[in-house]
């Protein structure tokens, strides 16, 4: 009997401690619910780099404009704590009484999934990011606040391309301030070595360059065709199709045109020009992007398709490398790969809209833009701050700013992810020769019909 009593007491203590433990941890682990948001966040939720301590903030003279705002602002960041630190530090300096409850989820799939779950369950953060992958869901689901009348949207700070990319029905839903660019990275020294003095300006000139390199025993170009954003066919679609008819995608969705009618041309140019001539080989479909970048940086290939995020990698592998990014030449003009980066949004169900708006206003201000450039490294396209872009990519950024780029995912009106997967699968199958360019293009029509019927 005595043993039973002791056992019961012990069990009760264990149960009690377990429940207490649960209660204590919950505050740190759970996403900040709107009702709790006015409470200061726990230390665990603070990014290391952010100047978190309130005492310190009180000791320093805070700017007058930020003193009146206080509370906790929850953010689900696309960028990790190290990258976000300059932005959070600058924001904290401006708004010392606002505590940021920082959460991070790695992009793209994990981020999109986590955000969807949080929003669906009503526990979404005050601020989060809109990407091409979740744009449609967020706007259609009414999860994002309309930003059309915010000062940075009306005074010309944010370019129209952002409003188009992350908007619908004339409304803007996201504040994106920078972009990424991509194109053909070419090794200037190899070009000099085989006597190529000028960048190819047309598709035929590019093929001539490839032949010259091949004749000299140099691998002309490498691409694994695993990226829907950086490949040959997207910029070719921009120069050959979209440039001639700006409404072509709307026509496809309205049933007046088809993917087969419009995408067959760029895919055929790529297939017949580069693959059938042996400049690109089917074997490359199994290579990883890292291997291709390494091959380029070590001089094993003259050209690769890549983006601005690989500049540091190339410089690390070969700091003395002499290279540049050029556009993908079409029959008349060159187009680049590129897109507006992800943008900040305000949760339409947020209880802290005032704080959230203050954060976005800060993000669009010159000091906010500078902090984002330092932290995230995207190429600023918003007015108010002009960083020094690396020489290798300078022309590419200028062209992307002018709209000389094409990324299908920004252009497709809906079912973006389904179409993206079908598009890239079609290109790979085309590359290994199991289907024709027409069939690759027609697959997108089939996919659109399938998903829009659901």
């Amino acid at each position, binding site marked *: 009997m005595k043993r039973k009593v002791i056992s019961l007491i012990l069990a009760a203590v264990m149960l009690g401690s377990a429940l207490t433990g649960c209660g204590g941890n919950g505050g740190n682990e759970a996403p900040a619910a709107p009702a709790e948001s006015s409470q200061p966040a726990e230390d665990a939720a603070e990014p290391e780099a952010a100047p978190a301590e309130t005492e310190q903030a009180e000791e320093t003279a805070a700017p007058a404009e930020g003193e009146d705002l206080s509370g906790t602002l929850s953010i689900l960041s696309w960028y990790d704590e190290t990258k976000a630190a300059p932005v959070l530090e600058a924001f904290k300096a401006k708004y010392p009484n606002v505590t940021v409850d920082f959460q991070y989820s790695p992009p793209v799939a994990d981020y999109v999934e986590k955000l969807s779950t949080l929003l*669906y369950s009503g526990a979404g953060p005050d601020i989060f990011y809109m990407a091409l992958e979740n744009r449609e869901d967020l706007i259609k*689901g009414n999860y994002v606040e309309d930003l059309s009348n915010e000062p940075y949207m009306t005074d010309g700070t944010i370019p129209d391309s952002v409003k188009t990319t992350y908007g619908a029905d004339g409304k803007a839903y996201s504040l994106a301030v920078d972009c990424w660019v991509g194109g053909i990275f070419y090794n200037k020294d190899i070009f000099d070595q085989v006597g190529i003095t000028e960048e190819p300006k047309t598709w035929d000139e590019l093929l001539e360059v490839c032949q010259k390199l091949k004749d000299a025993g140099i691998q002309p170009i490498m691409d694994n065709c695993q990226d829907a954003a950086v490949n040959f066919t997207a910029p070719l679609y921009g120069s050959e199709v979209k440039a001639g008819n700006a409404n072509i995608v709307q026509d496809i969705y309205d049933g007046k045109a088809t993917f087969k009618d419009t995408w067959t041309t760029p895919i055929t140019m790529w297939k017949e020009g580069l693959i059938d001539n042996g400049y690109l080989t089917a*074997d490359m*479909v199994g290579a990883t992007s890292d291997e291709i970048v390494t091959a380029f940086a070590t001089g094993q290939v003259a050209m690769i398709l890549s983006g601005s995020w690989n500049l540091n990698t190339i410089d690390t592998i070969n700091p003395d490398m002499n290279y540049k990014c050029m556009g993908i030449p079409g029959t008349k003009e060159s187009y680049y790969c590129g897109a507006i980066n992800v943008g900040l949004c305000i949760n339409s169900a947020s209880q802290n809209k005032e704080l959230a708006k203050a954060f976005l206003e800060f993000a669009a201000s010159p000091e906010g833009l500078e902090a984002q450039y330092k932290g995230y490294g995207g190429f600023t396209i918003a007015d108010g701050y002009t960083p020094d872009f690396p020489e290798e990519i300078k022309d590419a950024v200028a062209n992307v700013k002018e709209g000389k780029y094409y990324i299908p995912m920004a252009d497709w009106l809906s079912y973006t*992810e389904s179409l993206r997967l079908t598009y890239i699968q079609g290109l*790979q199958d085309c590359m*290994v020769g199991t289907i024709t360019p027409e069939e690759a293009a027609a697959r997108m029509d089939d996919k659109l019909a399938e998903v829009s019927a*659901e």
Partner: protein
Amino acid sequence: MKKKRKLVKQIQYEIFFLPALIAFTTFTIIPLIKTIMYSVTDFNGISHEYRFVGLKNFIGVFQDEVMRQALFNTLFYTFCTMLLINCLSIPLAIFLDKKTKLKSAERAVFFFPSIVSALLLGYIWGYILSPLPTGAANSLLGVFGLSPIGWTSTSWGARLCIIAVAVWTSTGWHATVYLAYLQAISTEYYEAASIDGASKWKQFTQITIPLLAPGFTVNTLLLLTNGLKVYDLPYALTKGGPGFSNYTVTQVIIQRGISEKQYGASTALATIFIILVMIISCVQFMTMRKREEDIS
């Protein structure tokens, strides 16, 4: 009074069952019911509004080329790995059972690949089997003056590479299971057989193999269930490519559900797959059990 005491005793035991029941219901039964529920709706994972669509999603599964291909790949992978791993791990277990000075080291070497994450192994093998001349396997070919091979650049090449890596990864682990059963076989059987003049091969086929039957049941069941839900290794090694030629069922479920927000289609495939796995597992388990009984 006696009945009451028996009931109290029974309840006392049942209380121990409760935590497991709650966990099982929360993390398995409820999601399973929800999966079946969503499979007859057009739920997209974002909107709270969805409607009943009947069997439309189930019909779509059989009309979708990607899903059919994924189903074939998964079954092919499961069959090949089950066959090859069983064929290789029994001789390996017999080899590891020998009393040599390096016994522990030998066992550790063969067991090691199974403790590393399949995702990590996929990426490592991706480098080894890279189609570029700088890939490890192609570099080796280059030493002998041979041209590089695009190991994972064709559908069948990639498929066979995935199976080869899976076999390399898991053979040691399954050999350990056989080893445990092997060590449980009494030496008296072999001694008696030797006295009766049975050859080594006769001893292997008439004593070792029949007494390894329970191990065969366990290993086959594990290989079957692991094979049918495979995702990480093919994804890490080929991302399901070229094209969608090496997609697995789990990859399609994840892709359709999470990436494409077609929860209806995704859960319909998941439901079909659950039923298929249940049928295969039951048939396999009953067949093996019967065989074990026949042997013993």
